[in-house]
């Protein structure tokens, strides 16, 4: 590796000849040239090159050029330019800002950042900007959920208690609802909220058959009933039972305790839905519908009129009666949900592998191949859908960046390449 120990760079000699050096540095370079034969030779070469270049002389400009410019100059008014009395004219600020490349570049950058944040940023970044109303709604819903999660047993003297042991479509309901007296509703409200309780229980048992009999016994002991029961018994897999049982609300704790004693509890969930508002609303609507029905029947009894009017009143009475019956059924269903808690029970038999009952090796290989192809297809589809989802945004970003990048590369690209090639910037 050769190190140039020459005190003056060649380009400095050239700049000296061109008169582009500061006076102090020019004096130093001139002194050096006087004592350096190499630089004197370079000086002579540069002068000769400049001399040779000047041999390229262009023919005189055509006279037509003068005529055209002269004619245009005559059109200029012979006085100060209107609106520009000052010597220094300035472009309006708004034009400088609007047409500034920096402005456009900044706008493009902000647009890109916005798109990228919108498409790729995690949702928690937007949390501080959420609408206050949505936050309030969220908190409200969270509050309701929390309220529903807190399961409250009806008070012992609940007016909404069912007569135990007579559950069914015609269960005897004891309470103000049975008499359909909406006037009593304020008294109902004093007893507390009406909660429809639910529970999910997954239990691992040793023997499903024994556990099933135990479940039936527990349901009977607690005056409940089984709404559904499904048993799965597949080859090579443990037997399972999926059941939904309904237990009177006041006995759900003891029933759950008994069910959990069947085996090892794998999962337990309890929840509740408050239906107080629905019941009150339903009772109010039912009261209005019944009063309307009574008024219509009075009209039918006391008034006379055209046949068409009578038929019209009868039709309205029929519709009102249908509405009343529908609301009564709905109210009964709601009160049933409150009185009887729903328990979804899943019983899994502890698996014990047996010889000769598994899937053959060929079948396993086939299943693995099929699963592999399905996974590959699903993955390709997921990638395709992802591209469809973010592709337009990426394309917009690319189009937005392309023109500023192209402008910057055209303006500075060659200078950057030269600077990289030289490895350093010469300093005078």
């Amino acid at each position, binding site marked *: 590796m050769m190190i140039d120990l020459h005190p003056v760079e060649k*380009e400095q000699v050239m700049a000296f000849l061109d008169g582009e050096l500061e006076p102090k540095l020019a004096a130093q370079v001139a002194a050096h040239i006087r004592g350096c034969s190499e630089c004197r030779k370079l000086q002579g070469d540069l002068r000769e090159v400049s001399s*040779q270049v000047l041999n390229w002389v262009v023919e005189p*400009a055509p006279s037509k050029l003068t005529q055209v*410019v002269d004619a245009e*100059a005559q059109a*200029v008014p012979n006085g100060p330019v209107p609106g520009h009395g000052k*010597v220094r*004219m300035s472009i309006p600020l708004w034009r400088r800002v609007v047409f500034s490349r920096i402005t456009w570049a900044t706008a493009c950058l902000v647009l890109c950042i916005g798109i990228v944040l919108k498409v790729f940023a995690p949702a928690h970044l937007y949390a501080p900007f959420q609408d206050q109303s949505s936050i309030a709604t969220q908190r409200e819903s969270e509050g309701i959920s929390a309220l529903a999660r807190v399961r409250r047993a009806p008070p012992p003297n609940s007016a909404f208690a069912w007569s135990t042991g007579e559950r069914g479509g015609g269960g005897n309901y004891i309470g103000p609802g049975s008499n359909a007296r909406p006037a009593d509703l304020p008294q109902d409200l004093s007893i507390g909220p009406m909660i429809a309780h639910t529970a999910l229980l997954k239990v691992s048992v040793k023997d499903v058959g024994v556990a099933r009999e135990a479940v039936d016994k527990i349901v009977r002991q607690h005056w409940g009933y089984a709404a559904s029961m499904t048993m799965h018994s597949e080859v090579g897999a443990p037997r399972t039972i999926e059941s939904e049982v309904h237990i009177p609300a006041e006995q759900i704790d003891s029933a759950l305790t008994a069910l959990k004693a069947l085996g090892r509890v794998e999962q337990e969930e309890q929840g509740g839905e408050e239906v107080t508002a629905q019941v009150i609303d339903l009772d109010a609507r039912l009261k209005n519908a019944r009063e309307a029905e009574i008024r219509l029947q009075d009209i039918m009894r006391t008034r006379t009129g055209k046949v068409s009017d009578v038929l019209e009143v009868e039709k309205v009475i029929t519709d009102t009666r249908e509405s009343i019956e529908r609301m009564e059924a709905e109210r009964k269903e709601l009160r049933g949900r409150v009185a009887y808690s729903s328990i979804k029970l899943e019983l899994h038999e502890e698996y014990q592998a047996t010889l000769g009952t598994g899937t053959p090796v060929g079948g396993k290989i086939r299943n693995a191949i099929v699963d592999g192809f399905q996974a590959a297809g699903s993955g390709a589809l997921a990638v395709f859908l992802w591209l469809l989802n973010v592709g337009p945004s990426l394309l917009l970003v690319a189009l937005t960046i392309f023109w500023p990048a192209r402008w910057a590369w055209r303006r500075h690209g060659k*200078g950057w390449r030269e600077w990289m090639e030289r490895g350093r910037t010469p300093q005078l």
Partner: protein
Amino acid sequence: MAAMRRRQPGRTRPPLTMASDEALMLEFQQGSREAFAELFERYRQAVYSFFRRRLRDPARAEELAQETFLAVLRGIHRYEPHATFRSYLYGIAFRRLSSERRRASHSTVPLEVDPPAAGQLDPCDAQWVKRAIEQLDPDHREVLMLREYEGLGYDDIAALLRIPVNTVRSRLFRARMDLKSQLLAQTE
């Protein structure tokens, strides 16, 4: 230009031929057509030569020279004497030339010179100079021509081409060294 050179009566001014380019532009902003006439006389041939050396078609070079001066006329209210009038004028001319080149082709067009004549050329001949310059790198060539023919300083060239001054100096040095090599090869 005779009409433009009529002096306004009742006003005594120093001879316009002794005024600087920038002073003439300011005079022209105040409405002096004579100032513009003087500027035109100073740069008519230079601007025409600027285009003529870079374009093959003399008619097109003349048109672009016209457009350059007309742009000065029409943009007189925007002129601000921040830099020399020379760099201002050649800035307009260079933008016209760039537009012309973009219109003709979307890439850098090589220097348009006449086809080289057969046989040996004399280095003192303009044809040899054309051929030698034509063989330079386009970027180096532009810097060399702006310096040698238009007489622009390093700073003006840097501002015109929008490149650093050091890049101007290095390109100019390389262009001159390349020309020297060609000159030596021709004479040996």
